[in-house]
């Protein structure tokens, strides 16, 4: 336990916050709950993206496709009479399958080439989804009546966020996480040490896209209406990438901090028309500032601040004990 605490000093804070989220419906107002729902949604997207983009360093700009697959699967199956909850695993499976189809060719590319290819894949998916008949085209689809239950959906989203974080933390501790880290640092070195890099990347892609698809399904149930404009929205796919980057790529806490920042930004953006018109300035400016000054994001910034502060005695002693 103490080893775990030393690795993740923010763990108690996180657990306390998780408990707060779970009990929020007892005392919080509906507006607050909506904001917390949105934050949990963002945590799932950011933490899941981070598994491939942060840990393995494979920056993908095409993740809104998986939100879309999850959302469309839920609506289409619910229209066929399924319970929305039962549609979630189906959406996850479809998204994972699609992630393999996309990953098999594109994972042969490295670094920025992979990133550019994912822009192409995202564009292609959006064009095709607006052209297909059963997706309702650009006018979108509505959930059947009687599927709306905010409290259940709230618990679903918060639970999914916690499961995602625990899963990512667990994977990070094991050989799988080390393999991802090795791929990020030096893919040839990783291969030489016996890591099947394509397979590991495909697995990470499948896990993260399945999580994102489940979030997409819950999104569809909560908003009751989806269209290519809402689930394949440029701002959404931008947010998915920016949250972990601004928070701190390849860390556990980074995506959570990023998700908090961006859900706060979203509330502010929705509240003020002037800000809403300049969200690209804010997003682009954040990206530029982070890339120029601290590519490790908020987490890197905090690390730097902590290194400046005089170290507390107790901590130094504890570390000396740990080392000795």
């Amino acid at each position, binding site marked *: 336990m103490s080893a775990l605490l030393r690795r993740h000093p923010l763990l108690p804070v996180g657990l306390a916050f998780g408990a707060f989220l779970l009990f929020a419906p007892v005392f919080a107002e509906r507006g607050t709950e909506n904001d917390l729902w949105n934050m949990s949604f963002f945590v799932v997207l950011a933490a899941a993206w981070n598994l491939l983009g942060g840990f393995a360093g494979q920056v993908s700009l095409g993740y809104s496709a998986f939100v879309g697959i999850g959302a469309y699967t839920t609506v289409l199956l619910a229209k066929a009479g399924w319970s929305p909850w039962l549609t979630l695993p189906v959406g996850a499976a479809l998204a994972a399958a699609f992630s393999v189809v996309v990953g098999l060719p594109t994972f*042969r590319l490295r*670094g920025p080439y992979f990133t*550019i290819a994912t822009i*192409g894949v995202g*564009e*292609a998916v959006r064009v095709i989804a607006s052209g297909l008949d059963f997706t309702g085209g650009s006018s979108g689809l509505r959930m059947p009546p009687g599927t709306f239950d905010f409290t259940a959906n709230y618990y679903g989203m918060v639970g999914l966020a916690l499961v995602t974080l625990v899963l990512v933390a667990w994977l990070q501790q094991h050989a799988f996480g080390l393999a991802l880290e090795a791929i990020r640092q030096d893919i040839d070195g990783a291969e030489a040490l016996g890591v099947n890099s394509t397979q590991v990347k495909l697995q990470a892609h499948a896990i993260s896209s399945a999580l994102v698809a489940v979030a997409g399904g819950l999104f569809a149930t909560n908003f009751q209406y989806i269209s290519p404009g809402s689930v394949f929205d440029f701002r959404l796919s931008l947010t998915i990438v920016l949250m972990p980057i601004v928070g701190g790529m390849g860390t556990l806490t980074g995506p959570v901090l990023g998700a908090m920042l961006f859900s706060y930004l979203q509330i502010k953006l929705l509240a003020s028309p002037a800000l809403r018109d300049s*969200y690209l300035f804010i997003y682009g400016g954040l990206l*530029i500032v982070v890339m*120029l000054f601290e590519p490790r994001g908020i987490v890197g910034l905090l690390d730097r601040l902590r290194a400046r502060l005089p170290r507390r005695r107790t901590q130094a002693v504890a570390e000396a004990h740990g080392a000795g």
Partner: protein
Amino acid sequence: MQKFVVVALNSLLAAGLYATMSYGLAVIYGVMRIINLAHAGLMMLAAYATWALNDRFALDPFLSMLVVAPAFFLLGMALYATLIRWLPRSQAGPSIQSLLLLFGVWLVLQNLAYAIWGGDTQSILTPYTMESVQLFGGRFGVPQILVFGVSILSLVGLNLVLRRTFLGKAIRAVTQNRDAAMLSGVNAGQIAAVAFGIGTAFAAMAGSMLSTLYAFTPDFGRSFLLKAFCIIVLGGMESFTGVAVGALVLAFIENFASAYTSIPVSYQDAISFTLLVVVLVAAPGGLPGLWRKLDRRVVAR
């Protein structure tokens, strides 16, 4: 047969524009090993600048390039001096960091256009926009022909600069081997700034020309960025001839696919994405790499 000739001519006309559009990306990649994602935003901004000049001063879009291109050359130098210069230099390939930085620049440019001109679709109408010429039984739009002419002129001019001047030779030297160029007394930082300016100016020329052919919004340019990237990958990333060949190949495939198959027009953009992924996966060295591989195989026999 007649149809074939007409489609081939159309492809050729498109290829000129494609080459201009891609060369800006290629020169920046060559000198700095950076993929300029802001290229699309720069093309969009130049399209708006051309439109604004046409709207205010009734300046012909093709003449306005004489103003827009130099202005964007300076803008590119400024971007280099304020942002790009501070990026850590990556040894092998382009870094994710530079890619994301320029992605941020693209977003800022988009918002700039939204803030100044709003989100409405704009287009430029000139007296010759609807004119066309009969040739080999096909109709060719006058703007398309003008765009082709200007593209060829600009590419020939650039080629002369690259081959005949010290600056051009220095750019090619840094592209081929940065360290060796520096050892021979080339100031690589200065060359990079100039190359970023040239790349931006070519994006601007492409944007001005695109504005005579297409309607545009601040979101304009994404599919053209992907096309340009596809072309420079086809062309082997850094050679001048490679870009021209890549542009021809993409233009011919696109035009022949839409003329001889039943792919709907809305999916036409998907051709370049698909080709991009196929080429990146099957022939990472582009056509030159493929050629060398085949050549070696023939020689081995």
